[in-house]
């Protein structure tokens, strides 16, 4: 998985594949996002090609962390396999998912 933060540290774009092996990297990303100041945390998935069940689990964990910090988490522009996974798991009922 590759990632790129915006200047304000509240928005990150992740690309390639998001699987179990990325858990250490994603922990760092989550910590940086939660350190940001904006109310909304945005994870841009437009360039993410594949996500596995562990990846979904990690997104759920960061959502819980955001809730604790009273901040909102937005998942933006899922496509391809990622969008199918979101559809099947009805992720839109658990997150704010923007097209």
């Amino acid at each position, binding site marked *: 998985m590759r990632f790129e933060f915006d200047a304000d540290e509240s928005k990150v774009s992740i690309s390639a594949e998001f699987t179990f092996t990325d*858990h250490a990297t994603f922990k760092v990303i989550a910590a940086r996002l939660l350190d940001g100041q904006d109310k909304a945390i945005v994870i841009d998935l437009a360039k993410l090609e594949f996500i596995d069940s*562990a990846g979904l*689990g990690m997104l759920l964990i960061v959502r819980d962390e955001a809730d604790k910090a009273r901040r909102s988490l937005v998942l933006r522009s899922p496509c391809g396999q990622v969008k199918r996974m979101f559809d099947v798991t009805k992720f839109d009922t658990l997150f704010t998912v923007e097209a």
Partner: protein
Amino acid sequence: MFRLGRKPRETSVRLVVASTSPPSIHSEVEAPPPPHEALLQRWISLADMQQRVIQALVSEIAHTSGFVETEADALSGRFQRLAVSAEQQTARVDSLTHLATGIEVEGKIVPIDRIAGLLESTLGDVVEKILHLSKDSMSMVYALDELKANVQRVEKCMEQLDGVNNTTNMLALNARIEAERAGAAGSAFRVVANEVRELSKVTQALAATMKSELKGVTDGISHGHATLQRVATIDLSGNILAKDRLEVLMVALVSRNANLETIVADAVKEAGLISADVDGMVTGIQFQDRTRQRLEHVVDTLHLLDRALEEIKSSTTTTLPELAGAAPDIEWVKKLLERFTMSEMRARFVVHLLDGELPDDLSDDMSGNNAPSSGGSTELF
């Protein structure tokens, strides 16, 4: 009726004959008889020929009626069997309706769309549990990562503790040396140095025990981490997407089932119409009885005509015996027979009209197989 004492008008006789299609009768008597006698001979000849025609027609009607009745009976029998088959077919198609509605589970019919809903709900639960499992596994992985980092920090503390212990041990050894050098004045100091040394040994033993225990904790964490990693790295995304595929399958199944229901409903309707039509045909064929009765009336009327002709012919020849034995009008018969398109019927008429033979059993002829036995005049036509 006929009035023998009055001379009939020749032209009117010709007109009557011509109006009933058969050709006019031409007398071929060699010596010209008196006009009224010639006319009477033609009447007698016509009456004789009409009798033969009537008999031939009666015979044709009787045999045709018999043939039609036999065929109608056979058809009726076949249609009745067809009616039974159509009813059975309707019942079978009707039973298909139940099959199209759903599948039987433990003696109850469960609709296909309900099965689809049940499956969707079950798969939804499974997917939800997979998500929970994934989330909890990753939480555990993060917790163990944290614990591992804690243990590593404790191990660093233990290394520092070893350093402190070594220094203490060295200090106790140096104090002992200095106490020995001081002689009796250092005896109390020697006691303290020994105590410090003993304390250092105990601390060292304790540190060794802690290291051993800590190694157990580290090994346990490593083992737990490895196990959890194996669980967490099982990619369940395929299982999640299986729900998607199954939903597509179920939608297709429900759609196919709906089509099947429509087709079966149409088939039930059609089968009902076929049964009704077949029943109607059976009823229709049974009206053959009325046809037979009509034909019997016709035959009866023809018989009466025959008897009337016979009577008037007989009374005429009794009164005027010289009129007996009038020759048949061959030309008229020829023209009559030319009107028949069925050769076997023509042949029968030849035998009957010219030779005066009564018709044979025509049952075989009705199927069109055989010509009648040839009479003496058949070859003329």
